[in-house]
């Protein structure tokens, strides 16, 4: 599926990129402190003066001529201080950051902030949690990085009918967890990537994934996608990796 020599995950990530998006803030003056968040995404930023109190402003996301959605200034605090709370946290489920991630799907991002990467991945896990069935795929650079997430994924698999597939370089031996399959990435095919994918339990509308590559130490270049064909190919590839593993 990939060009010669190109990592399949990179090809999938590039396929997930969509048409350019525009984020327009409406308010009395530019929301300069949001720029640090929005600048991480490859989107065009605009500001349109509107004589309302700053707390009454909002932002609108569009793709070409298509209006995608809006986020109120009440949620802007959440964009500044992203929530890495787990999917079953009700406040996190309503977070504006996750709304933004969904609206900006298909726009590439570059992040050097691990906490914000976790918050981005949570958007995918949250959908899986709400669906409560299907398969969730999560890659780690190494299984030792999975160690601190064991309780999160044990709960995701334990409280739902979700099956969870975890991939990573085998530098740590996880305990057996019901509903969680561990795949040792001996070949190192995916250790440069941070992937979280939900197969939608067969529903195209629920399929989603984050595909990020560590492009420099601690810097991830990636994309969130809701394109069902990309998600299908991604999960098929990860199934292949699992099947070919030890």
């Amino acid at each position, binding site marked *: 599926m990939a060009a010669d020599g190109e990592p399949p995950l990179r090809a999938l990530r590039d396929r997930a990129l969509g048409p350019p998006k525009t984020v*327009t803030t*409406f308010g009395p003056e530019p929301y300069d402190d949001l720029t640090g968040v929005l600048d991480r995404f490859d989107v065009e930023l605009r500001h*349109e*003066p*509107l*004589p*309302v*109190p700053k707390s*009454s*402003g*909002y*932002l*609108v996301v*569009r793709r070409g*001529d298509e*209006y995608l*959605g*809006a*986020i*109120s200034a009440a*949620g802007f605090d959440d964009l500044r201080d992203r929530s890495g709370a787990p999917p079953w946290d009700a406040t996190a489920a309503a977070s504006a950051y996750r709304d933004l991630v969904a609206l900006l799907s298909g726009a590439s991002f570059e992040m050097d902030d691990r906490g914000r990467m976790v918050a981005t991945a949570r958007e995918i896990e949250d959908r899986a949690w709400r669906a409560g069935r299907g398969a969730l795929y999560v890659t780690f650079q190494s299984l030792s990085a999975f160690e601190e997430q064991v309780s999160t994924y044990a709960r995701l698999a334990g409280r739902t009918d979700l099956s969870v597939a975890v991939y990573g370089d085998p530098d740590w031996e996880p305990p057996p967890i019901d509903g969680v399959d561990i795949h040792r990435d001996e070949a190192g095919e995916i250790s440069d990537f941070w992937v979280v994918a939900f197969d939608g339990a067969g529903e195209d509308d629920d399929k989603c994934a984050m595909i990020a590559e560590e492009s420099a130490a601690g810097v991830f270049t990636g994309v969130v996608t809701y394109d069902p064909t990309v998600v299908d190919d991604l999960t098929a590839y990860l199934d292949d990796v699992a099947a070919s593993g030890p």
Partner: protein
Amino acid sequence: MMFGDGGDQSRVFGTLADPERRVVLYYLREHESASLETLADLVTGWVEAGPGPDRTVARDDVRAGLHHVHLPALDAAGLVDYDPDGGRVTCEGLSRVGETVLDAALAADTSEAPVDLGRLLAAADDAGADDGG
């Protein structure tokens, strides 16, 4: 004629009864002119995420409402010039009555406080008097 210079408050209030029309004017006071597409984003975002209770609305419906109903109504009231073929709206400025009413409406639209209609009318009256109307 320019709106409000005769103190025709009931017509001002009638025209501005629809929130879409007020939002358009709030915006145009800062920009003077705008495309229909920008106004459709503005109003859809306002309904979905702006001041007041948020609700979901289809942008296509908002755009159609602006094009067929609200912008022609604002044009007929002399508050804006709307070119339906070019999709362009301009506002050369409001009368003092119009400004006063719009200021009060903006304050009401962006706060929890209920609108004090009597006070609003009195303020518009004063402004109308200042205009010599």
